[in-house]
C-alpha cells in the first residue's frame, strides 16, 4: 500500500513490461508499411519480448514489489511466473511461424503485432487484482486471438474457426460480466482482496447468490481453459486456425485462464473452498474423461491435440482443487512444462506442412522415422512427455499435481486421473507407432528453417532437462509462488 496517488503515475513503473510489449506491437504495425521481410518483423517482436522479459526480472526480481493503480494491478511472483510462460509462448510461436505463414500464404505483418497484443492481454490478466482489470485483459487477449484464428481468410475452416471462437468467446464474456455484477452487487467491490474481506465481514459466504456469481466466473474461465462442457469450440478452432496459432492458443489463453482462475478463487473466494470444489471436482473428472476418450477417435492430429489439451486442463485443475498454495504451485509448474512439450509437438506438425500438402492427418506420420529419424525422435519425446512417462518433463508435471491432490486428501481423484492418463497414453502411442512401426506411404518433405530448428531444440532440451533435473524448474516456481 505504498502508493497514495490515485492517478498512479508512479505505478507506471510496474507496468513497464506490458508497456514494452504494447509499444513493440504498435511499432510492428507501422513497420509493416516499410519493411517487407517478415523475418525482420519476427526479430523485432522477439527482441521486444526479450526486453520485456529482462524488465520483468531485472526491475522487480522474482517476487515483485506489490500493487499499483489503487490496488487494481498487482505484481507478485505469481504474476511474474505467468508472464514468463507468456514470453516463452510468444517467442516460440514466432519462431515456428515464420516459414509456416509463408507456406499458408498468410504472411501478414499484423500477425506479429496481434501476437504481442494478445500476449499483453494475458500479462494484464495475470496481474489483475480487480475484476475490471481482469475483464480488460481478457478481452484484449481474446479479441486479438479471434483475428489470429481467422488469419487464413481464404480458407473456409479458418473463417469458421474465427467465427465460432468469437461467438462462444463473446458468450463466455457475458458470463464473466454476470459473475462480476453479481459479486459486485453483494460485496460492493470488484477488488479481489476486498471481496474476500467483505465476504467475511458480511458473513455471506454461504449465500446462494454469491455461489451463483462464483459459478458464472468459473464458467467463463472454463471457456478459456477449455474445460468440458465448455470445450465445444476447442476442436474446431484448433483444427481451423493456422497451426502456429493453435500452438499459441493451446498454451497462452489456457495459462491466462488458469492465472485468473487461480487468483480469483484463492484471493477472493478462498473462504468458499468447499463450494468451488463442488463445482470443480466434477468438471475435472469429465474434462479428463472426455478429453482422453474422444481423442482416441481422432484422425486429424490437430484435433487430437485439441482433445489432449482438454484432458491436460483436467490434470492441471487438480492443483487448484487441492486448494493449497502448494497445489497452485503444482498447476503453474505443469503449465510451464506443458508450454514446452505442446509447442514442441506443434512445431513438428508444422514441419510437415508444405505447398500442396496438409500433413495433418495421422496417416501422414506413417514411417516418418525412416526418412526423418531426427524429427520422429523429437516427436517421440514430445508424445511420451505428453503421456507423462519419465524421464521427460511431462512426468514431473503430472507427479507434482497428483502429489498435491493426494496431500490435500483427494486420493480418489488422483486415481481417476492416473487411469485416464493411461487411456490417453494410447493416442500418443499411436503417433509413435505410426512413425516407427508403419511403412511410409509417400515421401514426406519437411519444411525447416533456422528459427524452427531453434524452437525445436529449445523445447526438446527443456523437456529432457526438466525431466532429469526437475529442481531447475521447481526451485524457480516454488520461489515465485511460496507454498
Amino acid at each position, binding site marked *: 500500500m505504498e502508493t497514495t496517488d490515485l492517478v498512479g503515475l508512479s505505478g507506471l513503473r510496474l507496468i513497464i513490461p506490458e508497456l514494452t510489449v504494447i509499444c513493440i506491437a504498435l511499432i510492428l504495425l507501422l513497420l509493416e508499411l516499410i519493411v517487407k521481410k517478415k523475418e525482420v518483423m519476427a526479430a523485432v517482436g522477439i527482441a521486444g519480448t526479450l526486453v520485456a522479459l529482462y524488465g520483468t526480472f531485472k526491475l522487480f526480481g522474482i517476487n515483485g514489489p506489490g500493487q499499483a493503480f489503487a490496488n487494481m494491478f498487482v505484481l507478485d511472483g505469481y504474476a511474474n511466473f505467468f508472464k514468463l510462460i507468456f514470453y516463452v509462448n510468444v517467442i516460440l510461436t514466432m519462431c515456428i511461424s515464420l516459414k509456416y505463414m509463408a507456406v499458408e500464404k498468410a504472411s501478414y505483418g499484423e500477425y506479429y503485432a496481434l501476437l504481442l497484443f494478445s500476449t499483453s492481454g494475458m500479462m494484464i490478466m495475470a496481474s489483475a487484482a480487480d475484476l475490471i482489470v481482469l475483464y480488460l485483459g481478457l478481452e484484449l487477449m481474446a479479441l486479438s486471438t479471434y483475428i489470429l484464428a481467422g488469419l487464413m481468410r481464404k480458407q473456409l475452416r479458418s473463417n469458421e474457426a474465427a467465427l465460432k471462437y468469437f461467438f462462444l468467446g463473446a458468450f463466455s464474456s457475458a458470463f464473466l460480466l454476470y459473475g462480476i455484477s453479481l459479486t459486485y452487487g453483494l460485496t460492493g467491490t470488484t477488488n479481489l482482496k476486498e471481496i474476500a474481506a467483505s465476504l467475511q465481514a458480511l458473513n455471506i459466504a454461504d449465500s446462494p447468490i454469491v455461489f451463483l456469481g462464483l459459478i458464472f466466473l468459473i464458467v467463463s474461465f472454463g471457456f478459456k481453459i477449455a474445460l468440458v462442457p465448455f470445450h465445444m469450440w476447442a476442436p474446431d478452432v484448433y483444427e481451423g486456425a493456422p497451426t502456429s496459432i493453435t500452438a499459441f492458443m493451446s498454451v497462452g489463453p489456457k495459462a491466462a485462464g488458469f492465472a485468473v482462475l487461480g487468483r480469483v478463487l484463492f484471493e477472493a473466494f478462498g473462504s468458499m473452498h468447499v463450494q468451488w470444489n463442488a463445482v470443480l471436482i466434477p468438471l475435472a473428472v469429465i474434462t479428463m474423461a472426455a478429453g482422453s476418450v474422444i481423442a482416441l477417435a481422432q484422425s486429424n492430429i490437430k484435433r487430437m491435440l485439441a482433445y489432449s489439451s482438454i484432458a491436460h486442463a483436467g490434470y492441471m485443475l487438480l492443483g487448484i482443487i487441492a486448494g493449497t498454495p502448494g497445489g497452485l504451485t503444482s498447476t503453474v509448474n505443469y503449465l510451464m512444462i506443458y508450454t514446452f512439450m505442446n509447442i514442441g509437438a506443434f512445431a513438428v506438425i508444422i514441419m510437415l506442412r508444405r505447398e500442396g500438402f496438409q500433413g495433418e492427418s495421422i496417416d501422414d506420420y506413417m514411417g516418418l*522415422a*525412416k526418412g526423418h*529419424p531426427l524429427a520422429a525422435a523429437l516427436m*517421440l519425446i514430445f508424445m*511420451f512427455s505428453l503421456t507423462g*512417462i*519419465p*524421464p521427460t518433463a511431462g*512426468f514431473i508435471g503430472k*507427479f507434482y499435481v*497428483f*502429489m498435491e491432490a*493426494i*496431500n490435500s486428501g483427494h*486420493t480418489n481423484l*488422483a*486415481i481417476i486421473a*492416473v*487411469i485416464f*492418463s*493411461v487411456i490417453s*497414453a*494410447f493416442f500418443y*502411442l499411436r503417433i*509413435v*507407432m505410426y512413425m*516407427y*512401426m508403419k511403412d511410409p506411404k509417400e515421401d514426406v518433405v519437411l519444411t525447416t528453417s533456422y528459427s524452427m530448428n531453434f524452437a525445436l531444440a529449445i523445447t526438446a532440451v527443456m523437456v529432457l532437462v526438466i525431466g532429469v533435473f*526437475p*529442481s531447475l524448474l*521447481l*526451485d524457480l516456481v*516454488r520461489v515465485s509462488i511460496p507454498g
Partner: protein
Amino acid sequence: MENIILNQLSYPILTYTVFLPVAGALLLLFMRNAGLIRVTTLLTTVATFVISLPLLTNFDKTTYKMQFVERHEWIPSWGINYFIGIDGISVLFIFLTTMLSVLSVLVSWKAIENKAKEFHTAVLALEAGMLGVFVALDFFLFYIFWEAMLIPMFLLIGVWGGPQRVYAAIKFFLYTLVGSVLMLVGIVVLYFTAGGTLDILTLSSLQYPLQLQFWLFLAFFAAFAVKVPMFPFHTWLPDAHTEAPTAGSVILAGVLLKMGAYGFLRFSMPMFPDATRMFVKPIFILSVIGIIYGALVCLAQKDLKRLIAYSSVSHMGFVTLGIFALNAQGVEGGILQMVNHGIVTGALFLMIGMIYERTHTRVIADYGGFATVVPWYAGLFIILTFASIGLPGTNGFIGEFLILFGAFKAQKLYGVLAATGVILGAGYMLWLYQKVFWQTPDPDYGPSGRHPVRDLDLREVVTLAPLIILIFWIGFYPNVLLSYMHASVEHLLQDVNMSAYAGKETLIAQLKEIF
C-alpha cells in the same frame, strides 16, 4: 545411517555401471555406419559387464546391509535423493542383466538390418533402465527407471518384432502402465505417510496401520503382478514374447519378468509385512493356477516362441510361490529360480532366434527331424530342455526343489499341486523336443535340399556358451549364488515375521479392522 555401507570402492561403481550404457547410447547418435554401431554397442555392453564384476568379487556376503551405496541430493525441495546401492537380493540381477545384454547384442548381429542405430540405442537404454531399477534405493528414482524402461521395450517389440508386433507392443505398454500408475499413487501416499521421504530403507523401517498396508499392498500388487506376470494378468506376455525380436524376448524373459518378483521382495514384503501375510493364500492360489494353467497351455501350442512364453507363466508361478512361502528355502529358491529362468529361458529364446534366422518359421510342425540337420544345435537344445524341466545336475533342479521344499513347509497342499507342474513341464518340453528334432527330417532343409540349414557358427556358440556353463555350475554348486543372498533373505524374513501384527490376530479379525 546404520543399515548402509557406503561404497567400499574408490570409484562410484554403481553409477558407472548404470550410466555407461547411456553414454554408449549417446555415442551411437553420432554414428552412421551400421558395423561401427554394432561394434560400439557390443563393446559398451562388454565394458558394462566387466565393470560390474567387482560388485560380485567385493561383495560382503556376511551382511544384509546395502553396499556400494552412493547418495547425493537430487530434488531437495521434495526431499528426493539420488540414492543407490545393492544387497544380496539385487546383486545377482545386476550380473544377470549385464550378461544377458551382451548376449542379446551378439545374437542380433545379423538379424537386425533395418534401423540398426535405433535398435542398438534402444537396447542400451533398456539396459540402463533395468540396472537402474535394481540399484535404486529412492522410490522416485526407482519409478523413473521402472517407467523409462517401457519406452525402449515398446520400440523393440513394435519396430523389430514379428507380424503382430504393433498389437503386442501396445498391449505390453498399456498393461504395464496401468499397473505402474496405481503404484505411483501408492508411492505418493507412502511419501506423505512417512512425512516427506521416498528413501526406500526408511520407508521399510516404518510401521504402517493395517488398513493402509492393505490398500498399498494392492496398489503395488497391480504393478508387480502384471510384470511377473501372475495369472490372470499374464495375457500381455505371450504376445509380447512371441512378437518381440530375439534380443527383446531374451531381455523380457531374462530380466523384465524378474522385476515384478523383485518388487515384491524389495518393497511389498518389508514395507507391508502384515498385508503380505494376509495375501499369502490368494497369491499361493494364483501361483498354482499359473503353474498348472501355463503348463497346460504349453501343451496346446503350435508356435515355438509362444510355447516358451507360456512356460514362463508356469515358471514364474513357481517363483511367486517360493517367495510368498515366507521361509528361507522358499525365498532363496524363488530368487535362484528367477536367475535360473533368466539363464534357461533366455538361452531358449536365443536358440529359437538362431534357428528362425535360418528357416523363417516358428511353427513347430515345420521342423520335424532337425537332429540330423543341425546336430550341434540339437545337442545344446537338449541341455536347455533338461534345465527347463529341472533335471538334477542342472540349475533348474535346485531352484524348483528349494521352492517346493519351502511351499511344503508353508502349506502342504500347494506344494503338492505345484509339484504336478514339474511333471507337466517335463511333458511339454520333451514333447516339443521330440516334434522338433526326432521326427522324419524334411529333405528340403538337408545339405542337398532347397533350403539347406547350416549348423551353429562360432559367434552363436560363443553366445550360448556362458549360459550353458552357468546351467551346470549352478546345478552342481548352487552355493555360488545362494551364498550371496543368505544374509539379506534372513533379514527380510525377520522383518516380515516380526511385525506388529504377527501372530496376534486371525485373518478375519484383521479384515474386520480394515473394513
